[in-house]
């Protein structure tokens, strides 16, 4: 069984300016991510099904290739492959032909890997938040307040 790692997405950063990327499956489920922590998985999970449905906006007789969402400061290049969608955050100045080629390669590779993996890939783990106070469970703390002893 093939194991998909988010490291595969790092190859996209060979293209100048690529901020990061993520992958959703055909139903929009989040599979891989290689993005700064400022974009949380909740947002990606919310976007995933809509990305999957986006391909339905193409004419029936014209297979989709990609979608480019242009925002004020960046763009999201969404490449469709057979078993999912590859979404790449790029600046407007990105080298589009190079990006398309890199996305094509990666999409084909992902298709092979996902087809070879009968089981669902491990879910994307949430970025681990920094613990506010590292406390070991089971260990009590003792406070003395006005002569009284308190254990917490």
């Amino acid at each position, binding site marked *: 069984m093939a194991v998909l790692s988010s490291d595969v997405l790092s190859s996209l950063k060979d293209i100048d300016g690529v901020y990061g990327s993520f992958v959703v499956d055909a139903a929009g489920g989040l599979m891989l991510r290689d993005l700064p922590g*400022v*974009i949380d998985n909740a*947002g*990606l999970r*919310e*976007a995933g099904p*809509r*990305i999957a*449905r*986006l391909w*339905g*906006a*193409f*004419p029936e007789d*014209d*297979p*989709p*290739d*990609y*979608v*480019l*969402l*242009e*925002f*004020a400061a*960046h763009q*999201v290049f969404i490449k469709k492959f057979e078993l999912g969608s590859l979404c790449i955050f790029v600046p*407007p*100045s*990105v*080298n*589009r*032909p190079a990006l*398309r080629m890199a996305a094509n390669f990666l999409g084909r590779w992902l298709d092979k890997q996902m087809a070879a993996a009968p089981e669902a890939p491990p879910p994307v783990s949430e970025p681990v938040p920094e613990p506010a106070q590292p406390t070991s469970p089971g260990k009590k703390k003792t406070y003395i307040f006005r002569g009284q002893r308190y254990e917490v």
Partner: protein
Amino acid sequence: MSAADDLESEAGPATQASRQAQVPAQLEFVDAEDDEEVLEVEPEPAGEEELARHRAGQLLRSTSEPGRSTSEPGRSAFVSAHQSSLHTLLQIESLSRTTGVFLVVSGDDSGYLHLVEGELVHAETGRRSGEAAALEILSWRHGSLEPSQRTLAPVRTVHSSLHNLLAHLGADVGSQPGPQESSQSQVAQRPSAAGPLDQDAPTETYLAPPTAPAPAEAGPVLEATVSRVGSEPPATPRAPGVEAPPDVVTPRSVLPPPLPRSERETPSTLADVVLSAAGEMLQGRGAATEELAARVAYAARLAELIGRAIRSGTPRAVELRGKSTQTLVRWQGDGNLSASLDQPQPSRR
């Protein structure tokens, strides 16, 4: 009676007086040899009289006064131009940050170019609109350009800059026209103060009919092929006996047709629509606009939701690229959506 006299008589006394006030000297019209001088940036401000004469001699300089940003249809002379001049004229208007609508007439074809602050925002012909129409108009080899009273388009359908469109056409921006083009300029004067005549009949041909050269004008080739107002000789008349290049005297009808534009360079708009924020189709041209409108509305909504989910805000545009078509959706400032279904263009970035 010469073509010039005809035009003078058509203009009426008021127009003639107005023109005389503006143009104390003889009107000069631009031909190939005048282009360079006309399009040269003046090194220093000229006097009002000189400016007026220059403006009249130039091809449509409605924005020649500093700070003027809107075209003045009643003031500008009707101008005829070959392709290169048309491109140059538009570039002048672009640099002048002109706002207005221009009627371009070429033979039986006509179209409108809508400029806002010098940017080409909309184009329309009888068959097309948007960039396809702009490319069609810019590809016309001969024609005339004049300001129009037509209302500016409320939505933007041309998103490429004028420079890019000209680059599409392979136009050598700023270059001098070749002898073939210059010889075919059918220049005529149209009375500009007679009121807006173009509004409801954009297909009217304003080119002067070909006139037989007067005996006195039969010598220099350019005088024989270009109708001139006034008797000022051409800047560089050909010496008698010097054979002109064959293409200079070739009638227009036997000229080789313009080279076909490469398929890669001519995006063909199959359909375009304008939708309100509520999804109502405000405009639609081309085939299957209802289906396009539905797809656009759906894609736009999904794109908005995706943008919100990934905290990127509302998209400015969405490009849906298929194997054989591309759909470009743009959010307008007024909340409307404009979209076009085109044949794919190669990415230039």
